[in-house]
């Protein structure tokens, strides 16, 4: 990619709603992305490799468990800080943000929230420092939007459980040291547990051939009579609310992250439109280009304010899952539309790796589907406002 000339946009002066520390966190992550991510992300995506050197940097800038208390190695930061970190990471690449989201919200969050004190002490500091990487197994080949139908199961064998089944579309799986896995017990109740790489019968084959999130490693989790020690089971949660609690945290981060991708596309499109001359004048002077740019910044601004408010509610422990669904759905869709319009403004250049547009657009096609599809989140809002479940 050409030099990263990104400048952020704050049409409604939302910065005035942030603390100085929020802004320092955001600028630090942005500086790190410009220095360490932008110069290599294009090649990483073209070659479909995850640059492992990002892990140490992600840990240092607070990308792993920023809201986990300091005593467990986390940052002890608030939810707005977490959101801003996710925004800046996804401004770099959705795959990068996915790696951090998974580690923070899908691995560290459940260990902290549902785990025993021993589990917290054993795993969280190493996950915060990036010494260990984690992944999260919920989705199965035949159970995506309907995780409650999962087939993965554990059987009580006295001193351990025997785990069988498989998980699919698992970010970080190919290199993860630990996996938070959800499976049904013999009573059909969903239980969570921590698996460690090296356990007999536990393998993580990589998924190849993706056209999206190419700088993020994706794989499967396969469990073939894996002996899971009983101390690896989460003692403090049973049922679907366990994994859904994790998803709430991750979806909240995605709502912020999508703004980052949209800002990057808008910023590039705005600059390109002012520099690209056709018919003797910059294309930014044509009404149809201005319509695109004006609508982009309008939608970005609405998303920024929606998400900031959600962050405040989350800090106060008042954000509902339905509110988080609305923000995730709105913002990812907004980012995808912004990417598509930005691609048009860039003309043919928009499909090349000289600009981040096509990469963001392809990434966002995953983001609009994972962590609850666009349609499922609509049904969550529908259920919330009508009181009627339209899923089944």
């Amino acid at each position, binding site marked *: 990619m050409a030099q990263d000339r990104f*400048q952020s946009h704050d049409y409604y002066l939302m910065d005035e709603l942030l603390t100085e*520390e929020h802004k*320092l966190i955001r600028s*630090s992550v942005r500086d790190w992305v410009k220095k360490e991510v932008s110069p290599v992300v294009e090649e990483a995506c073209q070659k479909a490799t995850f640059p492992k050197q990002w892990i140490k940097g992600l840990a*240092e800038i607070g990308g792993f468990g920023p809201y986990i208390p*300091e005593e467990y190695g986390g940052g002890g*930061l608030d939810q707005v800080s977490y959101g801003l970190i996710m925004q800046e990471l996804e401004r770099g690449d959705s795959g990068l943000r996915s790696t951090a989201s998974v580690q923070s919200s899908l691995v560290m969050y459940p260990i902290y929230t549902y785990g025993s004190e021993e589990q917290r002490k054993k795993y969280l500091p190493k996950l915060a420092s990036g010494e260990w990487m984690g992944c999260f197994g919920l989705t199965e080949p035949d159970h995506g939007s309907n995780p409650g139908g999962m087939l993965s199961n554990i059987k009580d064998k006295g001193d351990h459980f025997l785990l069988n089944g498989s998980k699919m579309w698992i970010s970080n799986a190919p290199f993860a040291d630990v996996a938070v896995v959800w499976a049904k017990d013999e009573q059909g109740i969903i239980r969570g547990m921590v698996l460690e790489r090296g356990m007999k019968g536990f393998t993580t084959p990589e998924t190849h051939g993706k056209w999206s999130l190419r700088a993020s490693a994706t794989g499967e989790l396969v469990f073939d009579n894996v002996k899971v020690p009983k101390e690896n089971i989460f003692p403090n949660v049973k049922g679907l609310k366990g994994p859904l609690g994790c998803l709430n945290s991750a979806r909240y981060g995605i709502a912020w992250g999508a703004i980052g991708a949209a800002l990057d596309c808008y910023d590039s499109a705005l600059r390109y439109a002012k520099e690209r001359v056709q018919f003797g004048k910059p294309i930014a002077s044509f009404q149809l280009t201005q319509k695109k740019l004006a609508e982009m910044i309008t939608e970005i601004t609405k998303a920024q304010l929606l998400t900031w408010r959600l962050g405040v509610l989350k800090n106060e422990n008042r954000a509902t899952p339905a509110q988080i669904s609305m923000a995730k759905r709105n913002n990812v869709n907004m980012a995808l539309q912004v990417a598509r319009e930005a691609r048009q403004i860039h003309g043919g250049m928009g499909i090349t790796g000289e600009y981040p547009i096509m990469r963001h657009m392809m990434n966002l096609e995953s983001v609009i589907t994972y962590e609850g599809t666009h349609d499922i989140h609509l049904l969550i809002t529908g259920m919330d406002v009508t009181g009627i479940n339209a899923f089944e």
Partner: protein
Amino acid sequence: MKILVCISNVPDTTAKINFTSDNKEFVSAGVTYIINPYDEIALARALELTEGTGGTVTVINVGDATTEPTIRKALAIGAADAVRINAVPRDAYFVSKQIAEYVKQNPFDMILCGRESSDYNGTSVPMMVAEMLGIPSVSSTKKLTVDGSSATIEREIEGGKEIISVPMPFVAGASEGMSEPKIPNMRGIMSARTKPLKVVEAVPVPELAKVVSFDKPVQRSSVKLISPDDAGKLWEMLRDEKKVI
């Protein structure tokens, strides 16, 4: 080893520059402020020099309370403590006098500044501070290493470089190459919350210079393109429109 790093609070290098209608003051509304980029280099080198040695880095800024976010960033990058001289910086003499007076009461082994600030490009604070303290000063420092009670410094000069040795204490102005600016990490940001930031009232300083007005550079006019087939037109334009030939 105790190092003092002087930091200026300057507009982001991408900020839009505007002045009040009487052209006497910079309009700061909506402008993001940062640590002067050369000062960031000085801070990074100071941290490298003290790392693992038990030495400390203090940052000093002359400014009102609005500069504190910039000072906190310096603490997040790794400075141990900070001093803010509570006054709006009027000019280089004013700033230098404040720093020199503080150092007279609180001695340091080394004072590092950026070689110039990116706002008004004054370049004179490091030399003035050294002069007021009666210690050596070195400008445009590209490399700085410490040997016992002296430092070896590499300076950029026309067509080459100059290697000099100075006894401590001294003042040096940091230039590109002395170090790489550091990005604050999460631990640094968290620890900056509780690091000491001392506010010291300014000493009276006579006003030696006054800004009369600021003028922005004249905007470049648009380029006129002439077809290669019509090169004679260029000659005519230079003669008739610009009257340069």
